[in-house]
């Protein structure tokens, strides 16, 4: 009886703590959302504004009209779509080839690839390479250097190895060549694996900013994260009084609106992709 009460108490505390953790995770997003809609005077007056009394869209007007976020969206979208498609192509093919255990020279080729995961030239030599290839200020500098993630390649290779070899043998007996087999038999079977790895690539394209900081100077080519970063950093040292002078829309509200505008796409797709990711992590890390 005693343990039962203690047990139930323990359960309630557990639920309470988990609720608190979830609340702490969500709170910053909700707060930013509400600030982005709140007129300047309200933020300073009411301290915590989770549900704004007055709503203004002026911060969003400024973000879209004056700060080039539309163009940045296009760049990021292009980068994510084209980049991810190329990533998948360039990851799946070597993964498929290297999944053939009988391929002569397989282990040497694998070593050649896996070694790049353990040791690398580092930032400066890579920068000099990109520069001498003439990729500076080209959107390809955001796509080509990261074409293949060795980790994802190994995940896909493991996946292909698990496919029953009889499938390919019977295709070969039926007179199908390697490419036909790959296209007609392997690819359709691998769609879940493609979706997971593709999502991993897509999120990293959407979120990365440092490569663009290094390789892109042209404002027309700057992806979303870099533009957001500039908006957040440009006024870092400005005091509140100064920003209040800027007019009816405060810099702070503009910053918050920019954060929301950059977060929304992720929030929209997140519910649909979240469980695939969880599966992907497990495929990638735990054998069997």
């Amino acid at each position, binding site marked *: 009886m005693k343990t039962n009460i203690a047990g139930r108490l323990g359960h309630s505390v*557990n639920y309470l*703590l*988990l609720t608190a*953790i*979830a609340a702490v*995770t969500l709170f910053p997003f909700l*707060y*930013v959302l509400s*600030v982005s809609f709140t007129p300047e005077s309200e*933020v*300073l007056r009411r*301290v*915590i504004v989770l549900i704004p009394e007055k709503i203004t869209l002026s911060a969003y007007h400024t973000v879209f009209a004056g700060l080039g976020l539309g163009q940045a969206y296009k760049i990021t979208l292009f980068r994510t779509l084209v980049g991810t498609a190329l990533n998948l192509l*360039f990851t799946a093919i*070597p993964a498929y*080839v290297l999944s053939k255990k*009988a*391929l*002569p020279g397989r282990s040497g*080729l694998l070593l050649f*690839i896996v070694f*790049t995961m*353990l*040791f690398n*030239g*580092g*930032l*400066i*030599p*890579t920068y000099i*390479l990109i520069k001498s290839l003439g990729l500076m200020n080209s959107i390809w500098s955001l796509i080509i250097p990261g074409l*293949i993630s060795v980790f994802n390649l*190994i995940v896909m290779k493991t996946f292909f190895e698990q496919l029953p070899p009889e499938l390919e043998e019977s295709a070969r007996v039926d007179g199908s060549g*390697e490419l036909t087999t790959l296209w007609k038999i392997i690819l359709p079977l691998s769609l879940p694996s493609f979706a997971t790895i593709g999502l991993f690539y897509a*999120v990293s394209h959407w*979120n*990365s*900013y*440092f490569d663009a900081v290094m390789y892109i100077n042209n404002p027309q080519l700057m992806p979303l*994260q870099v533009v*957001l*970063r500039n908006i*957040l*950093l440009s006024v870092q040292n400005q*005091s*509140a009084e100064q920003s209040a002078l800027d007019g009816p829309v405060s810099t*702070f509200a503009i*910053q*918050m609106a*920019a*954060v929301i505008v*950059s*977060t929304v796409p992720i929030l929209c797709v*997140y*519910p649909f992709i*979240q469980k695939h990711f*969880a599966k992907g*992590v497990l495929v990638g*890390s*735990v054998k069997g």
Partner: protein
Amino acid sequence: MNAPTDTAAALLREKGARQTTLWARMRRYRILYLLLLPELIYFAVFKYIPMFGILIAFKNYNLALGFWDSPWIGFSNFSSFINGVYFWDIMENTILISVYKLLFGFAAPIVLALMLNEVKSNWFKKVVQTITYLPHFVSWVIVYGLMVALLSPGEGLVNLLLKEYGYSPISFLTEPGWIRPIIVSSDLWKEVGWGAILYLAALAGIDPSLYEAARMDGASKARQLWHVTLPGIRNIIIILLVIRLSHILDAGFDQIFMMANTFNQEKADIIDTWVYRQGLERMQIGLATAVGLFKAVIGFILVVAANKAAKKFDGQIW
């Protein structure tokens, strides 16, 4: 379907394969080699050429002269790095930030997973998981934006509260004393839910009959945790810990590059951010490459050692 014939066929195939020459076997796979070629070229150009470019570390690199014509200077870039005044600062920052992240960030996902594992209600579990994964998917730029909302000195929420209660505002994002706690706690906030996934999977894999047996023996909840749950996820904990330790010099570039500024640099600058600033902002290319190489070599040794160590524990991970 027909096992004996299948085995016989497999044996025949193997025999046939052994009899053919290497050249014939390679010919059989020629299309696959052809398919592999572009990827190999990719690795050669984008991974191996930069490795070759490491030679810059041994040169007094001059932009006007370029790679081939810059003069060799042996190890002097390395000695000027190790003897430089900044050396201990950036080593300390890198290792301390990494160790703090390990101390606070390693156990937290395990605890979260154990808590979620106790939850009976499926929808509650799903909701909490979905929410706690979320920050993993937003960029560090966005996280920084959230921090501006909460911590900026003029209008950040925390400072509005401080002012409300008569304290003077703190510029959290520019004060050196605050930057490490902020780096560590934001990393915890962003990754704890995601980190719990692997442990949850391991917990789901524990044989329920073990719990039943423990209950029959009169084990309390705490003793079940100690004698069944923790041993059940022991291997994965050890392997992940070993992997984390091997990345001790990676304190989190994307995050720190976003959060470090001229004001808090003394406490936030890590090897990678230092390399960026020296190499690409101050054009100390030889020196920065030497530091990058220094880090890559130590990283390589640690990773190889970690792999060896991880294999001892059943090698559950790749």
